[in-house]
């Protein structure tokens, strides 16, 4: 019984983490039609910026905020300076994002070195939460909470605001959105910055669990891809549901059938692509 309770809690916490990672990826993918392969790097960059901030001011919230803002600026520059000149050339854009991810990885190595660096959780969340015979890290529940709050905030943004309506219009039918006067070009930059900010802040929030280390980018990117392909490109709900499905499959899969951990992780993605190419919540994209 204890096994099932702890693994369920683990799945929920991992799902929260995956959502922070995948939400931005999904929005960018949905609006701009490019798989942003720097997304893992943005996540890692956020974690490293967090490391530096925490070394000066030991406040995880501040670190997440600063990392989010600085990674958003980086994302904005990337979009404006590198991706914009390649507009319409999706393959070229994807290759550029891949190239930038290598550059970011090596820059991080030069700046922060090759050793894993832990980010410290707030001291109030460091102790395990003990209920009866079950001990569970308090920080993981906190991550889940952050993910849920973020999801609600994004939902309000997308469904209740004019900006969100414009983004949704852009995702669904870009030529028509342009035709009715929506500034799609500015939206691109905004969404890219938003996605980057989520990834950067997510890197800091994930830091106390995963630490910052070279290779974090490559470890996270496939997970973002799986979640988005499963949930459906450009769909916030898809990213949310997809994150938790993947987290549950991953956690229980590697606990019950450890030899097949990765098979189990990718199998649902293949099944979804075969039977529902647009993902669980993906819509027809023009």
């Amino acid at each position, binding site marked *: 019984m204890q*096994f099932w309770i702890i693994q369920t809690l683990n799945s929920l916490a991992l799902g929260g983490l995956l959502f922070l990672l995948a939400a931005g990826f999904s929005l960018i993918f949905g609006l701009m039609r490019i798989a942003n392969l720097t997304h893992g790097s943005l996540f890692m960059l956020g974690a490293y910026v967090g490391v530096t901030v925490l070394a000066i001011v030991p406040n995880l919230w501040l670190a997440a905020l600063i990392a989010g803002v600085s990674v958003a600026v980086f994302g904005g520059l990337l979009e404006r300076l590198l991706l914009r000149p390649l507009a319409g050339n999706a393959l070229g854009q994807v290759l550029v994002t891949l190239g930038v991810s290598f550059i970011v990885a090596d820059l991080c190595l030069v700046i922060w070195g*090759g050793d894993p660096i832990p980010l410290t959780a707030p001291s109030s969340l460091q102790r395990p939460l003990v209920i009866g015979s079950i*001990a569970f890290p308090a920080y993981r529940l906190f991550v889940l909470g952050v993910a849920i709050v973020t999801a609600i905030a994004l939902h309000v943004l997308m469904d209740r605001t004019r900006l969100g309506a414009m983004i949704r219009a852009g995702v669904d039918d870009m030529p028509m959105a342009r035709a009715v006067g929506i500034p799609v070009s500015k939206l691109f930059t905004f969404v890219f910055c938003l996605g980057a900010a989520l990834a950067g802040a997510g890197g800091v929030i994930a830091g106390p669990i995963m630490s910052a280390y070279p290779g974090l980018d490559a470890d996270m990117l496939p997970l973002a891809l799986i979640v988005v392909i499963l949930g459906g490109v450009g769909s916030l709900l898809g990213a949310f549901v997809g994150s938790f499905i993947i987290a549950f499959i991953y956690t229980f899969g590697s606990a019950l059938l450890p030899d097949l951990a990765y098979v189990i992780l990718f199998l649902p993605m293949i099944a979804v692509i075969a039977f529902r190419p647009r993902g669980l919540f993906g819509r027809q994209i023009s």
Partner: protein
Amino acid sequence: MTFTRRRFVKTAGGALALSTVGVPLRASAQSEPIRIGLMTVKTGPLASGGIDMERALTQFLKEHNNTLAGRKVELFVGDSAGVPAQARTKLQELVERDKIQVLIGPLATAEALASDDYIRQQQLPTLSVAAAEDMTQRNPNPWFVRGTSTSSQSAQALADYCYQTLKYKRMATIADDIAYGQEMCGGFQRVFEDEGGKIVQKMFPPLTVPDYATYLAQQKTNIDGIFLGFAGSNGFRWYKQFNEYGLKGKVNVVGGMTAFDEAVLRNMGDEALGIITACWYSAGIDNPLNKKFVTAFRNEWKYDPGFYAAATYVEGAVLEGALIAVNGKIEDKHAFMKALRGIKVDTVRGPVSFDVYGNVVGNVYIRKVERKEGRLVNTVIYTYPNVSQFWKYEEREFLKNPVYSRDWPPAKNLEN
């Protein structure tokens, strides 16, 4: 001054004339510098260790005034990024463009395996850091010596220590799901169970697992200890989460040679105190060579050398020993190889010699994490002298068994 065509012709002509004069004056092979290649990893996830390899080897050569056995040496460094295919390409570059005469490295098992054929074909004397067991066991490469250890060489000694000294009877193992982790756990399990202990739980998380929560939730607590066979940063990440789950104090932790390396310790806190690991090196080894090495390395880089730094420093000493034995004549490859495998040399890790397969016979140290002068160090608490890759088993019997893997030795005592 403007660079006219006339002047260019004159200068170029002069250079040409000089170079033709230079040919007859060319020195004999003996006084030319020896060309040493270092295959390491300076980018990517393994870079931390790889950069240490270069720093320590450069320090070694500098301390010898870039002269070994009376001959100048030149160092050429290749960066494989830890990718086996790239290791193979870079090695070819080192051999064919830089004309290296001896190779130090590579770092990772898979890189060594990818370069195996080429090393044989080029007959390139290689002083390896990579731990791949079979390169000095069932499929030995005649051009290969390893002054560090096989994957399981230290783990086998640690198993003995756990059973005999710590009196552990029931243990679990966890390691990266790669050859290195599997071989380490295999060696640990075999010795521990042959002596009478039981391995009741074995876990092999994928190398790039983002999170160890799943494995920690299954962790048995009715055991005496768990053996960690992690490489790089994974041991560190696992142990952090181990603490978060409140398991510290319930289960004792012992580690293989890379689990709590000095490179990892410098980013850890008091939670690491008291952990016992086994390795062929520790910055705390008490011998004059090591004291000199550690002091100089610390002064230069502000941290203690660990596994990877010591690895190339030891290989440097082995190289020097062999070069002295052949009077610097590295050009006679066969004689040089024979000297490499025949020498006995004092190094920072203690005395080193080689078995007929080219693998080191040397001390294995049992170490405990302590705080000294404000930083965490691996203090040596026990020394197993002159440990062979075959532990105490008879060599021929040992080689009849399959190489250590996930499934060998078979786990007979697992409990659900």
